[in-house]
Every structure is written in C-alpha cells, then in structure tokens.
C-alpha cells in the first residue's frame, strides 16, 4: 500500500496539469464568446475523449487498434435508440424491439448505457481478439470495425441504413463536453497506475519477462479493451447529442485515422501525449481554417487557397514525426518538474 500511495503522489501532478489545461481552454473559449469557435472546441473535447479512450488500450498494451471507432458507432446509435422520441422512432426505425421504441431515457443514463453496450460488445469480441498480438491484432480490430460498419449500414429497420438518423436531442455543449473529457482523463489516469495497467505496460515493454513474472497479458489486455470501449461508447453518445444526427460513415476510416494520428503525433505511450496530440492538431487545423477564410491585413485580405488546409496538416504531421518520431511529448508525462520529467513506468 505504501508503494501505491507514493506512485499516486509522484504522478498525480500530470493529471492535475492536464485537467487545468482543459478547463483553461473551456474558460477562454467562453470568454471569447464566438459560437462557431465554441462548437470547434466542443468537437475537440469529444476528440480528447476518443483519443484518450484509444490510448487506454493502445498506449498501455502497445497493440495498434484500428477498430475503436466501431465502439463510437455502437455508442452513438445506442444513444439514438434510447433518446429519440417514440413517435419518431416508430416511423424511422420500425425494426426496433417494442420496449426500445417506447422508452425515452434521460441523456446521462442513456450515455452510460451506450458505454455499457460498447463495453459488453468489446468483452465478447475481445475474448477472441485479445489472443492475437502485433500486426495480426491490428488487422483483426480493423476487420471488426468493417463488420460493424457493414452491419450498421445495411440493417435498415434498426439503424436507418446508410442514411442519417435525425431527431437525437441536442444536448452536448461546452461544459458537458469538458466534463466528459475530464472524466475520461481521470479514468485513463486511474487505469494506468492501477495494478492491471502497470502489468499491461510491463507486458508491452517486455512480454516474455512480464509473462514470466505472472502477468496474464491476454487478461490485462481484455480489461483495457473493455474500459476503452466504454469510454469511446460514451464519447459516441455525446457526439450524437452534439450533432443531432448519426450515420455509419461518420464512424469509419476518416475518424479512425485522424484520432490515431493525433495519438501518434502526441506520443502514443503517454496520457499527456494523447491529450496534447488532440490539442495541438486541433489548434493547427483551426489556425489553417482561419487562414483559409482570409486574414485582414491593412485592407487587403490574405487567404490561402481552398484545399491547402488539408495538405498542410498532412505535411505538418509528417514533419513533426520526422523530428519527433516518438511524438511531441516523447512518450513522457508532463509533470511539475520541467527538467528530467519522469518516464512512465520505465
């Protein structure tokens, strides 16, 4: 127990700093008072939830997963099933079972249940997939994503097919999203200093030695997989309440790659890397969008051509990775001490 509390004391500063950064961003955004900018920040907080959710599994286990956005899909659709008014569901989703059509849950309960549904799915699928490691595991998670996408795109009576489901109540504003992001960062932090998280990290760095010391890597991976699925399921639900619309292709390759890129650019083995990756990449994207719209310079408007924004963000990512192959944070955590920051569990 003594050791546990000292680990907490040594690493708690990371958690506090990350939460303070997130709160600061929210407060500054509110003070600026610009509606479109606020929406960008809400979206960024949801991305924080997603990327930290992926980090819980990928960062701790070292297995790259392409499949986690499948959990976002499950979560977002579950939120749609639980919260759209019964009258609308009878028309747009007639295939739903009766008890689902007739229930309309409060948003937080529905988001929690959406997370549970994703976690349950992860538990079932993970029991099989977690036996794989390395690139085979990555491909298997991708295959899982593809299966989820195909099912949700074609099961018309329950998911509305490739079209969008409308009518999800708008709810997610900046404070909800901030709360979600903070909650997820806390969950990730508690997991990585827990017994299971430390065992999984040991298994990531030295699989053989960890197994010899009694770490059941498959079991620890499954725990991380389920926790991350829950987190991403909740994020998916909040995303549904943010847009008011869901459609299956919003949870496929595009978002998979952007979230993975944010994680790797930030530094995929540290929680700070996951959070900073989202903030930095979102910041650059926002900056480029402003440039695309045009900057007023003494009467003349300077604007970069349309489409250059995406090209630039790709190039920036390549350059960052060239100079920092292990990510912006070099896989370390941010702590009070500026020099000689402690490496996580190494």
């Amino acid at each position: 127990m003594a050791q546990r509390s000292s680990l907490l004391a040594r690493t708690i500063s990371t958690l506090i700093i990350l939460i303070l950064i997130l709160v600061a961003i929210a407060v500054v955004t509110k003070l600026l008072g610009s509606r479109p900018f606020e929406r960008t920040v809400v979206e960024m907080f949801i991305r924080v939830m997603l990327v930290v959710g992926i980090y819980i599994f990928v960062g701790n286990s070292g297995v790259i997963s392409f499949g986690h956005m499948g959990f976002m899909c499950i979560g977002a659709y579950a939120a749609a099933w639980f919260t759209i008014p019964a009258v609308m569901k009878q028309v747009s989703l007639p295939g739903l079972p009766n008890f689902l059509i007739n229930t309309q849950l409060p948003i937080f309960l529905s988001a929690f249940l959406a997370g549970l549904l994703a976690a349950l799915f992860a538990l079932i699928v993970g029991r099989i997939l977690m036996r794989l490691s390395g690139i085979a595991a990555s491909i298997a998670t991708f295959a899982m994503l593809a299966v989820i996408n195909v099912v949700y795109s074609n099961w018309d009576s329950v998911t509305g097919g490739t079209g969008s489901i409308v009518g999800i109540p708008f709810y997610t504003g900046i404070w909800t999203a901030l709360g979600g992001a903070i909650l997820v960062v806390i969950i990730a932090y508690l997991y990585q200093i827990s017994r299971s998280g430390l065992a999984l990290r040991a298994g990531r760095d030295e699989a053989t030695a960890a197994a010899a010391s009694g770490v059941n890597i498959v079991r620890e991976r499954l725990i991380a997989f389920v926790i991350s699925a829950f987190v991403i399921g909740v994020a998916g639900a909040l995303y549904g309440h943010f847009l008011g619309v869901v459609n299956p292709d919003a949870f496929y390759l595009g978002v998979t790659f952007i979230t993975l890129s944010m994680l790797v650019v930030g530094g995929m083995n540290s929680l700070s890397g996951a959070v900073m990756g989202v903030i930095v990449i979102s910041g650059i994207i926002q900056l480029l969008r402003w440039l695309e719209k045009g900057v007023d310079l003494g009467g003349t408007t300077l604007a970069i051509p349309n489409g250059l924004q995406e090209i630039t963000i790709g190039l920036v990512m390549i350059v960052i990775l060239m100079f920092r192959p292990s990510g912006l944070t070099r896989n370390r955590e941010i702590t009070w001490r500026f020099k000689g920051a402690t490496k996580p569990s190494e």
Partner: protein
Amino acid sequence: MTALLQILFDALSLGSLYALGALGIALIFGVMRLVNFAHGDYIAFCVFALLWPSIDAAAIVFAGNLPTIILIPLILAIGAGLSVLSEILVFRRFRNANPATMMIASFALGYVLKNFLLMLFSSRPKSIDLWSNLSQQVEIAGARIPLLQVITITITIVILIALTAFLKRTRFGLEMRAAAENFTMARMLGVKANRVIMLAFAISGMLAAAIGLILATQSGTVDIQMGMSVMLVAFIATVIGGLGSLPGAVIAGFLIGGASVLMQVILPLEARPFRDAFVYGAVIACLIWRPQGLLAPKSAKQRV
C-alpha cells in the same frame, strides 16, 4: 457448368487486383517493415495522371489519348516515380522509427496526395473512356466472359511470372529476397540498402499503376476513392498471407477475391448486403487460426 465458369472468372479477376495490390504492399513491408497506407493514393494518382487538371464534371483526357504503346509505360513510370519520390522525401527519414510512427507517416502522405488530387480535380467522379472496346464478351466453353476479365487475369499471371523470374534469376532479385529475409545481415554481406529499398518502391509503384489502369478500364470512371478499397483488402491479404511473404500475399489476395465472389453467390438473398461482414468475419477466423499468416517467413518468428 457455364455458371461455374463465370464465377471462376469473376473470382480470378477480382483476386488478381487484390493480389497485385497485396504484392505492392508486401514488397515494401519486406524490406523496411513499413505498412504503406499511401498505396491506395498512388493508385488514384496514376489514374488521374490520364487527365488534365480541371474541376468540371467531364473529364478532360490528356495523357489518356496517347497511343497504348506509349501510354502504358508512361503511367507505369509515373507510378514508379511517385513511389520512389515518396521514399526519398519521406520514408527515408523514418528508417529507424517504430512501425506505428511509419504507418501514420504513410497515412499522412496519402492524405496529402489525396487532397492534392481533390484540389486539382474536385471530388466528383468523372467518366473516362479507356479501351472501352475491351468490355465486349468472348465465349469460353459456352460461358460469356468479358474480354477485360480475361486480359486482367492474363496480365496478372504475366506480371507474377516476370516478378518471380526477376526475384529468382537476377542479382537485384537475390538482393531483395535477402533483404526481406534479414535486412541487417543482408547489409553486412554487401547489399546496398538504399538501392534495394528504392527498387522495392519502384516495383510497388508500378504495380499500383497497373491496378489503376485496370480499375479505370473496368469501371469507366475516375474517382478519388478508387484505390482505397483495393488497398485495404490488399493490406489484409498481406497479413493473412504472412507479412513479408510474397507468395503468401498473392495467394491470400486470390483467396479473399474468391471468398467475396463465392459469398455473393451462395449467401441467401436477404444476407447479401452483409456480404462484406462475412468476408471480414472470415478474415478474423483466419487470423485466429494462423496468427502468423498462411505462409509466414522464418524471419517473422519472434525471438526471445
């Protein structure tokens, strides 16, 4: 019987595309452990090289008007050039990075290429008339088979034979196989790393160009997304075949193509929209059954 023959040709021609794609990815993975996500965008780039940049709905064919005898080498050269250029400008700096970093870098490069094409050509699919006379049908043993399918399969077989001969009979081929087996040891024995890697990229780029030409002829359209689905399946095929194993990649490519066509036929009507879910389910089953792949090279075994 004729129906069976039809299915066989469908399976072989779809499998050919996947096999060529898988080969392009496996070649590069073999020499530098890079999963190249930009491969699909190489395919799209080569097809768009046929056109003159414009954002109109109608395609302005430019290079596509050249006589076939010049056109094919030109497009192949563009594919090879693009691929080698990306090695020199980007991937060379990632030689010592971990595979996840390289993978994301290749994805970022693909993203840049795709948006570059978007900027020049817009996202609307355009129709293009490339060797459309190949869509006529020929009769083989009573079954009517599109001529293009026959040509696709023939071309693939020729490419596979030529590549095998190159890898087995020439000095460069020997070096590449040695590098794929054990890169460090090969370098110690005098194989020049840069030369082998550039060669792998060049061949991979040419394969991408070949796929692009076949796709454009088959569909008659040019679309920014056209390389994507082939690339994803090809990527899966390289893993199922055993990463780093070239024959494995080809076999797995044909297997996935065959499985897709077969499921389209044997699945009950109401389950057909879910065909891809069954194919990917089979992929997972295959990975559980043989995590190392069907033909895992010896070098892929983890040492303790």
